[in-house]
């Protein structure tokens, strides 16, 4: 009999019961919540008179609607304010293990906070009403996004009704070149398999280029698994995972720690396990990536040129390219490096951790933003990241370069707060989605790494960050 994949092990260790058609009741260890996708679930609980099955599984924070400046003025938009206050009231009524309300010193993006507090651990099932829950798979946890009805289901029953996904392996071997980051690996994978390439799958990432990544880098890769269509991304835990978690508030302590680490060491794919599909990339063939269109799969290396729809045979794809070029205001065959930008956003659950800010600061040190760039927003992922960056003096580097140093939150990744792209403006962004209108109606988003975003801010257009290192 073939061995088991990491995904098989995580799945099987959480099955409460299984129907004959393969539909399972899956036990959920950790339930992350934010203000946008939870109010209707709590309302449903209230209407049916139900209580949470285990409120100590819950970690909650408002992040999407919170402003990133002028915190002393509170939340100006009354609709946003009501949603944040609704979360306050719901947590007060229903309870939670961890709650960082607006302006709390540790408030930030839910996917940054979970790992930061040791509330995300290897071997767990983690869900959240947010597609970027895949981020937590970097710890060898089975983590994926759910809808609001499922949020209510998990609140009430501590389980999810689910069917097992297919198993996909994405293997990246070799050493990445200078200036090539976890974000570039993720975008290159999406460019290769497409935004539906991982649909119906849980993707395990492995290979020497993945092992070499820091925990921050691994979170970036798993975060983007959903942009390849996969609900969950996974990386087997190793000594880096344990080193990251040791001593964190909710990480196991004492004898439990040793027992936990021994268990975590078993959480890897067996040598004879079989995947439903395997995709292989070579790390040394991946260069800094820039998206040119309105889907994350519309991505190219910095040295490439914008595609020409005339060369595409498939009519649906050709229409897609034409529509994307029109929306993005680009012409076929123009060099990516010649694209001039108006704004830069460095932040989001993809790239707002301390390592991302260090990388951006290294490029910005001693430089000034270009005159044609009207705003550069640096939005740390959490209060903890912000204080760490300030302790290292990164904020001073950014401010000296003419960048804005903001308070933590989701910010211009999806522009639910006041940080948004006006129609027609073009942004180099470290976030995860370049969909039409994502950063503001009519806004034009190019996804890049923090290094590439900082370099574009200085140059005023995209540049190959490798020439600056």
């Amino acid at each position: 009999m073939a061995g088991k994949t990491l995904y098989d092990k995580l799945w099987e260790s959480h099955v409460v019961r299984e129907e004959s058609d393969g539909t399972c009741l899956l036990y959920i260890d950790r339930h992350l919540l934010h203000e946008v996708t939870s109010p209707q679930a709590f309302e449903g609980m209230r209407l049916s008179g139900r209580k949470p099955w285990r409120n100590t599984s819950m970690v909650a924070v408002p992040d999407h609607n919170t402003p990133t400046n002028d915190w002393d003025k509170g939340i100006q938009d009354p609709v946003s304010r009501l949603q944040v206050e609704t979360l306050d009231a719901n947590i007060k009524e229903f309870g939670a293990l961890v709650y960082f309300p607006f302006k709390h010193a540790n408030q930030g993006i839910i996917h940054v906070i979970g790992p930061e507090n040791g509330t995300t651990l290897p071997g767990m099932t983690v869900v959240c009403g947010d597609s970027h829950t895949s981020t937590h798979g970097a710890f060898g946890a089975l983590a994926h996004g759910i809808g609001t009805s499922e949020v209510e289901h998990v609140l009430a029953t501590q389980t999810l009704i689910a069917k097992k996904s297919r198993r996909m392996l994405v293997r990246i071997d070799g050493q990445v070149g200078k200036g090539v980051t976890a974000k570039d690996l993720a975008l290159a994978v999406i460019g290769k398999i497409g935004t539906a390439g991982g649909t119906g799958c849980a993707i395990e990432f492995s290979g020497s280029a993945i092992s070499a990544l820091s925990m921050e880098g691994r979170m970036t890769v798993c975060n983007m698994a959903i942009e390849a269509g996969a609900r969950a991304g996974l990386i087997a835990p190793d000594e880096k995972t344990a080193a990251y978690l040791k001593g964190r508030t909710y990480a196991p302590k004492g004898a439990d720690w040793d027992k936990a680490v021994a268990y975590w060491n078993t959480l890897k794919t067996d040598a004879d396990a079989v995947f439903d599909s395997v995709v292989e990339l070579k790390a040394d063939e991946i260069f800094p990536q820039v998206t040119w269109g309105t889907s994350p799969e519309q991505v190219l290396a910095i040295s490439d040129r914008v595609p020409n729809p005339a060369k595409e045979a498939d009519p649906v794809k050709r229409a897609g390219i034409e529509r994307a070029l029109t929306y993005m205001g680009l012409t076929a065959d123009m060099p990516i490096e010649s694209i001039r930008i108006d704004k830069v956003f460095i932040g989001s659950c993809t790239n707002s951790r301390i390592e991302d800010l260090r990388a951006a600061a290294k490029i910005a040190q001693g430089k000034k933003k270009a005159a044609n760039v009207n705003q550069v927003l640096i939005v740390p992922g959490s209060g903890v990241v912000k204080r760490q960056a300030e302790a290292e003096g990164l904020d001073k580097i950014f401010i000296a370069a003419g960048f804005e140093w903001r308070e933590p939150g989701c910010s211009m990744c999806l522009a639910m707060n006041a940080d948004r792209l006006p129609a027609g403006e073009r942004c180099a962004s470290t976030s995860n989605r370049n969909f039409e209108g994502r950063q503001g109606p009519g806004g034009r988003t190019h996804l890049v790494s923090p290094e590439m975003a900082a370099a574009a801010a200085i140059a005023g257009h995209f540049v190959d960050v490798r020439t600056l290192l």
Partner: protein
Amino acid sequence: MKAFTQLNGLVCPLDRANVDTDAIIPKQFLKSIKRSGFGPFLFDEWRYTDHGEPDMDCSHRPLNKDFVLNQLRYKNSEVLLARDNFGCGSSREHAPWAIEDYGFRVIIAPSFADIFFSNCFKNGILPIVASADIVAQLFRECFATPGYRLRVDLETQTVRNPAGEWFRFDITPHRKHCLMNGLDEIGLTLQHADAIKAFEQKHRAAQPWLFN
């Protein structure tokens, strides 16, 4: 949840691939703490030429005449015909809420994004995966035939065109049962509360640190 059994519905063709949930319902409408009233804002940025905000009266907003939902022949359609990877991106359930509130009960596409697909079943919407060839044929017929309808029957798991040609679609028995009876899944799951408790005890004994 509204039950779904069968429907003979007018078809609306949305001819683009990778339609994401940001396009289905833009972020500003996610600030609502209700789960109703999203229908007028479905595909807001494609449907209107002005900028939509929550609680707006949409009856006098300027329409994008080119957008398929605004064409008279597709008024009151109940079946949405779509292309590959429909519903990709954000997990927002506001997307199926908006689709259902607008009046669609069935979506037919060659493929759907996972989270959107499962969200549909929680809201009385039947998402049907059909082969690329069948979807291409339905698009052709729909464009060519004003008043084009499809007869969708969940009991027999079939879709029938006006010419009487039909195809069969897959659905898990669990989802079919819940959809046909409009069942609340939470109530069903809580019938297994003892099994959940027993699992939890065993799980806690093996990995006590998960319960810190």
